[in-house]
């Protein structure tokens, strides 16, 4: 009788095969990604601050757009990535997907906070108020709390692997908020202006404003990705250290699942 002694895939070293490759690959990519993010951000923001024209109505406050709008794009783009990673983690149990979700949430939360704060600084001179409880602003605030909820849920478990499932479910339920944010300016009355770049027809923004905005947007995206990669590497290394401690039965390991013996 031939007994199948191979451990189930989730328990074998394969669990770390892909993350190992990811650690090597990301180490090679990260310096370039960080340098690109830094320089593209510098170009976009300098262009927006110095060379882009002031708006005929809004004056120089329009320059806030070059930080506010890219932050908003990646606050939402980050949540989309969080939702996709959560789906992959939930359905295929890919070990990197859960790590990506854990890494994305704090970065998304910071970008959302930046979006809210810069929007407030823009709203005060242009709308005459720091804040208004309309659909756009409220739904972005909800996005911020969804990120915080994901962080809190992830931190609430002693064993990080156990948090993956509930956190993924939270992230997927929260994804209904994304179309609400996107279309809130069309569905409800608001002080916030409607979409002017991400429209089905051509953008309604002059190229002198559109170019620095798109470059800032690209720079923010590269920076977002670089920070997420650093955080993914951290999570993987921390989990490997935990696994070592758990396998050796040392404190801090929190062993409650069978340790594979091979």
């Amino acid at each position, binding site marked *: 009788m031939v007994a199948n002694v191979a451990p189930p895939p989730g328990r074998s070293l394969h669990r*770390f*095969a892909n993350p*190992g490759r990811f*650690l*090597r690959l990301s*180490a090679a990519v990260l310096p370039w990604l960080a340098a690109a993010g830094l320089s593209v951000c510098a170009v976009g*923001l300098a262009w927006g*601050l*110095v060379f882009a024209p*002031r708006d005929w109505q809004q*004056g*120089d*406050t329009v*320059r*806030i757009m070059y*930080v*506010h709008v890219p*932050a908003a794009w990646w606050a939402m783009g980050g949540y989309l990535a969080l939702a996709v990673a959560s789906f992959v983690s939930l359905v295929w149990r890919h070990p990197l997907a859960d790590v990506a979700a854990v890494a994305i949430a*704090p*970065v998304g939360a*910071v*970008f959302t*906070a*930046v979006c809210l*704060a*810069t929007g407030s*600084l*823009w709203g*005060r*001179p242009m709308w005459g108020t720091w804040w208004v409880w309309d659909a756009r602003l409220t739904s972005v605030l909800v996005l911020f709390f969804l990120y915080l909820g994901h962080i809190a849920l992830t931190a609430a478990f002693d064993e990080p692997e156990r948090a993956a499932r509930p956190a993924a479910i939270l992230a997927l339920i929260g994804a209904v908020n994304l179309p609400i944010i996107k279309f809130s300016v069309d569905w409800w009355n608001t002080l916030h202006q409607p979409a002017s770049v991400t429209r089905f027809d051509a953008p309604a923004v002059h190229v002198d404003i559109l170019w620095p905005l798109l470059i800032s947007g690209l720079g*923010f995206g590269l*920076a977002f990705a*670089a*920070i997420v990669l*650093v*955080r993914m*590497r*951290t999570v993987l*290394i*921390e989990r*490997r*250290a935990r*696994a*070592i*401690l758990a*396998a*050796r039965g040392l404190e801090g390991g929190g062993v409650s699942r069978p340790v594979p013996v*091979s």
Partner: protein
Amino acid sequence: MSEFLAMGGYAAFVWPAYALTIGAVGLLALVSWHQWRSAKAELARLEAAGLTRRGRTEGRREEE
């Protein structure tokens, strides 16, 4: 130059918006970097003590 700094009278809104953005994202990047460094140091400490997930002797490293 002073005209540039004045931002058409909106300096009190434009500059904080930029400072806040760069400060928040920069701080996040810095904190993330330091967390990675201390995680790496902790793993190196465990591995230097001869500990791996599978036993004391085998020390196949998968990354640097």
